[in-house]
């Protein structure tokens, strides 16, 4: 098992150091893998994508139907728990689709991308560009916009986000502001001008759908319609947060080696299905052009170059939680991963 220790992370880059941005992309550690093997792994396949997305969508519809049928009874509690959990796995789909890798056919990829972006409350144009920065500057403080756990650790937001209370609330506010054309300087800094009108209109469509759902609820004198749109990211977001925290939390910051700041965690079939194999998160960051269905094969091809994968989500949390707790008062403390000999 990896151990925790107090190793110093390198210094966070200055926000005003443009040369850092020019340098970083070529400095990340790259695994050794024959080009022919990598080409095979990178192949896109509509059938492989649909083998996940069709059952996922069918489960979403079926669980929603059961939940609606049980509305007004106590059976609705477990039924909506299941629906909300499946619904919230739209976040894993948004992520993978933002890379354009699940499907070979672009329009299928784009259609599912915008659907899952809406479902998970991550406006598609804004987040495509934001996520690009996460891959360029993974866990570099002052650069990466997707650092989930601050240093020092703030416990309350982590716990609250098991119900989406921080992340999703912020996203709703952002969608509303952008729908009215109020775009902040930070967005202007990374979103090309040509994308801004698309983002604003996308937000307006999001709001129109939600307002339409609210109108339907008012007309029916029932909260039921609202149980199906956006609210599942709150009442069903636990699995997304549970698995999402294992990606980077507690690991080194400001290092140019994903093996030190990103985890791979083995887990069960159901979680892998819902999470689109993003438990192989280290492999995803090393070679993001490999689609989700090929990540287990990529893991097998390069695992001798990586720190050992965590055998379970429990094992990851058993190491991560004490480290996060310690980082409340000692932000320099990190979980140190043991790298294989070169």
């Amino acid at each position: 098992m990896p151990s925790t220790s107090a190793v110093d992370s390198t210094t966070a880059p200055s926000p005003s150091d443009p040369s850092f941005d020019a340098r970083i992309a070529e400095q990340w550690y790259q695994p050794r893998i024959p080009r022919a093997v990598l080409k095979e792994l990178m192949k896109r396949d509509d059938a492989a994508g649909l083998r996940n997305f069709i059952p996922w969508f069918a489960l979403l519809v079926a669980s929603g139907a059961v939940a609606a049928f049980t509305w007004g009874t106590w059976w609705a509690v477990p039924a909506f728990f299941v629906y909300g959990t499946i619904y919230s796995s739209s976040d894993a789909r948004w992520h993978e689709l933002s890379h354009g890798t699940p499907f070979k056919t672009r329009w299928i990829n784009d259609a599912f991308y915008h659907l899952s972006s809406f479902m998970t409350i991550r406006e598609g144009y804004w987040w495509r560009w934001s996520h690009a920065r996460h891959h360029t500057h993974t866990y570099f403080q002052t650069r990466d916009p997707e650092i989930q756990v601050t240093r020092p650790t703030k416990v309350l937001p982590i716990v609250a986000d098991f119900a989406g209370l921080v992340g999703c609330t912020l996203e709703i506010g952002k969608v509303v502001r952008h729908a009215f054309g109020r775009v902040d300087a930070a967005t202007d800094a990374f979103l090309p001008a040509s994308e801004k009108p698309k983002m604003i209109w996308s937000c307006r469509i999001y709001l129109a759908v939600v307002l339409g759902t609210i109108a339907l609820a008012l007309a029916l004198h029932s909260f039921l319609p609202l149980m199906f749109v956006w609210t599942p990211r709150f009442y069903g977001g636990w699995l997304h947060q549970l698995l999402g925290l294992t990606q980077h939390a507690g690991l080194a910051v400001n290092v140019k080696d994903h093996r030190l700041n990103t985890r791979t965690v083995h887990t069960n079939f159901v979680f892998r299905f819902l999470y689109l194999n993003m438990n192989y998160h280290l492999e995803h960051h090393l070679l993001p052009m490999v689609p989700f269905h090929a990540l287990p094969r990529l893991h097998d091809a390069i695992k001798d170059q990586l720190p050992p994968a965590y055998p379970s989500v429990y094992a990851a949390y058993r190491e991560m939680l004490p480290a996060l707790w310690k980082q409340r008062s000692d932000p320099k403390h990190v979980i140190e991963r043991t790298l294989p000999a070169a």
Partner: protein
Amino acid sequence: MSVETNAKVHWIAACAPDDIDEEDVMRFDHDGASYAVYRIAEGYYASDGWCTHEHAHLADGFVINREIECPLHQGRFDIPSGKAKSAPVCVHLKTYPVRVEDGEVLLGLPVQDAS
């Protein structure tokens, strides 16, 4: 390396045709610049090697039909035209003429770019 000159371009030998697999890309460095040479169903093509979005070499990317996908953020360019096709790439890629002669893939580099 053979160099042939005409009024507008130098033709520089980059590789042998079989050095690049079908549906693949190869890096070619010349005179301080870096290029990507492609082999797709329609033939051989060449472009600047570095993505116009961020610092990633397209020879590390993936050829899908007529497009090259950047390895870093999966933005795509049309290989024959260099046109940016999908976010996060917005700026088109500079392309170069290519011809295959006498067992060599030749890149037509502007005179000022060629040695």
